[in-house]
């Protein structure tokens, strides 16, 4: 009699165990199938046994869907993953796909992968050949930079990280000097250290720079320059002087309307035509200018959003205190506007970092470019998967950390309005 009635608190004693049995059978089948390649429900016809776990799980989840059961765990499960038939189906599908995909991924990444050795011949397993990454790791980090001089890049970055690290702990007054040092002195110091040419350091041409360190160098310089240019453009776009306003609008919309790759092409093949015959500007500098101007246009739009969001009263209050245009913007408007658009600024900087691999079009090779070079090496053919998975992981860690940091910053700086 009770068999066809809806699961409820009255029949919990019979339905709950039955449901759990059904669910366990279905999960066990999928698990055994995925990990040991053994079909435990083999006595059913092949077509049915494929869908059987899904069906069993579905019936099980239906049976345990008991409202106000009085059992806390069951209520939580029902509320979160089993609230109706459709949700139960989606839940089962998700869990099965996850269980099914764990063994092949685990095998490829760890169990069948090769870690020991120095050449491709040592890669005998079916999984990933991490030896490739190990052997090429130096190149992936430093590009074609001479091995003997790599301590210079390390030192430059070590100084940077030490200063940034220290600036978190020192008092606000000292922090100001740290930041000023970072913005105005450190860039020259770092470039001098990496490029060389004086103080007894051997000169290393920019064509040899590469790998992940080049990604950092380009990102750092582009961020440093695109931010002030972007702020100026945003102010220009909101200026009351028509000529300045229209020039700013034209400049911003021009860069925002074209893809970065064409801008880089332009810096590589078209820009030299515009210079006097015989002048040569380093490829890296041309690329830096292109990326900076490109990202500055995006930065300008983000900053403009912040400027527009500020109430008019802020401008009027500043004016009524007798402030001029620059004083008003620097002391009153920009600090508030920039705080409003931290997520936008962070997104632009993230986009900048993610855009750096594009410099391959002018022949500079950062991480992705170096992997492209390494995978075409005759001794290491067929290593594309390992290379790009590694590069993807590195970039993912950098970008994810940046986005998390910006979210924290946003929370910290948010003021109640």
């Amino acid at each position, binding site marked *: 009699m009770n068999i066809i009635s809806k699961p409820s608190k009255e029949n919990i004693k019979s339905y709950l165990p039955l449901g759990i049995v059904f669910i366990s059978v279905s999960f066990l089948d999928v698990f055994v199938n995925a990990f040991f390649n053994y079909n435990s429900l083999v006595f059913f016809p092949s077509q049915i046994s494929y869908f059987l776990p899904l069906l069993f799980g579905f019936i099980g989840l239906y049976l345990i869907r008991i409202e106000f059961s009085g059992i806390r765990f069951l209520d939580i499960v029902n509320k979160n993953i089993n609230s109706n038939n459709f949700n139960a189906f989606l*839940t089962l599908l998700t869990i099965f796909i996850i269980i099914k995909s764990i063994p092949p991924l685990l095998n490829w990444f760890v169990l069948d992968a090769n870690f020991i050795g120095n050449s491709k011949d040592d890669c005998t397993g079916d999984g990933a050949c991490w030896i490739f990454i190990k052997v090429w790791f130096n190149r992936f980090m430093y590009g074609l930079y001479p091995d003997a001089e790599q301590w210079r890049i390390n030192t430059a970055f070590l100084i940077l990280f030490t200063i940034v690290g220290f600036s978190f702990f020192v008092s606000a007054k000292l922090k100001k000097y740290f930041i000023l040092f970072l913005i105005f002195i450190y860039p020259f110091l770092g470039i001098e250290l990496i490029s060389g040419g004086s103080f007894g350091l051997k000169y290393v041409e920019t064509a040899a720079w590469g790998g992940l360190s080049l990604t950092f160098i380009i990102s750092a310089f582009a961020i440093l320059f695109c931010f002030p240019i972007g702020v100026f453009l945003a102010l220009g776009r909101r200026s009351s002087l028509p000529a*300045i306003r229209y020039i700013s609008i034209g400049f911003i919309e021009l860069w*925002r*309307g074209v893809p970065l*790759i064409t801008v880089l092409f*332009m810096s590589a*093949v078209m820009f030299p035509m515009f210079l006097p015959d015989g002048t040569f500007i380093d490829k890296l500098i041309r690329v830096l200018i292109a990326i900076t101007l490109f990202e500055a246009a995006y930065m300008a739009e983000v900053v403009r959003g912040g400027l527009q969001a500020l109430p008019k009263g802020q401008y009027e209050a500043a004016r009524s205190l007798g402030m001029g245009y620059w004083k008003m913007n620097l002391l009153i408007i920009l600090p508030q506007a920039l705080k409003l658009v931290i997520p936008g600024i962070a997104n632009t900087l993230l986009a900048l970092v993610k855009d750096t691999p594009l410099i391959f079009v002018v022949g500079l090779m950062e991480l992705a470019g170096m992997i492209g070079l390494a995978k075409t090496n005759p001794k290491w053919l067929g290593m594309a998967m390992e290379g790009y998975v590694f590069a993807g992981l590195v*970039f*993912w860690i950098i970008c*994810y950390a940046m986005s998390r940091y910006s979210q924290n910053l946003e929370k910290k700086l948010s003021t109640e309005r």
Partner: protein
Amino acid sequence: MIFKKFSIENKKARDLIPQLITVLALISVIIYFATNAQINMGNRGISFGFGFLNQEASFDITFSMIEYDGSHSYGRAFLVGLLNTILVSVIGIFFATIAGVIVGVSRLSDNYLIAKVAEWYVEIFRNIPLILQIFFWYFAALRALPLPENGISFNDISFLTIKGWYVPKFIWTNFNIFLLSAIAAFIAIYFINSYATKQREQYGKQLPTAIISLSTLILFPLITFLFLGVSLTFEYPVLKQLSPTVYTYEGGVSIIPELIALALALSMYTATFIAENVRAGILGVSKGQKEAAASIGLTKNQILKLVVMPQALRIIIPPTTNQYLNLTKNSSLAAAIAYPDIVLVFAGTALMQTGRAIEIISITMLTYLTLSISISIFMNWYNKKMAIKEK
């Protein structure tokens, strides 16, 4: 005295000076660049002009939607590249929208697992550079597909191999009539809908517009098939042996792996951004709106269609427009895997052959500017249509 008047009291003059300086600086930079360019081009013996567009291109393009071979002009090659760019952008926008909406809605699902999976999808694919994703699909994932002789077959109609995806080709007779009938169906649906709106607003009658529209859409083309001599046959790809070891497919349409990789990466990457927009849009509709709609007796579907979606769309459309623009611009990364888009064909091969850097880069950039502006004009029009109409 004059100086004082000039600097403080005369606001017009004070405003004029910075503008004048800026404009003069801009003009002088342009003149400087232009003279340099003229001298440089003179040295290389080339003169500025667009006449080269009519010259014979004499290079081949691997994938073209219109008839093209080496004997056609550079202008034609430009058109081939442009069409390929538009093709991959349209495919990318289509799938990115679908995936983005699904993921965005999933992130708000009350199913914990689904919401988490959607969240991780967004976090993973948004934080990996697009170019790496394209490389991954093209150089790693699609290279793992089988050779033509062991191609993955879908019911023997279509085959997925390392050389591309072979799908049946549509062979139409009297395609024009079919197209006309489809256009007629859309026009009919427009009138039906406006009639239904009038009926609803004047008499409060609800017409089943969805069913009527759907049946019109099916009925009109069906009539052409039955009575007006339109027919459709398929040409299936068939495996053919070229030499003892080399196989290929004949017939059908081959979708090249470059296009698959590019479309896949573009739509998966852009979908994460669209998903965030969709999520923000739905969250942006206040709970009171839904409760108010429920309290006047609207059904769940009506609430979604009449109350939540129109308001959510207003929040979703402007940032999504930006994502469509980004996708179109990002399709230029095609050059990295040799998909013959406008950058590879025109700014790559054609530039190498002619050496006309200034003309070709300008045309390419102008093309992208035009594409961007036309998409934003269309989306602005749509946005205005969706905006709140004050009565």
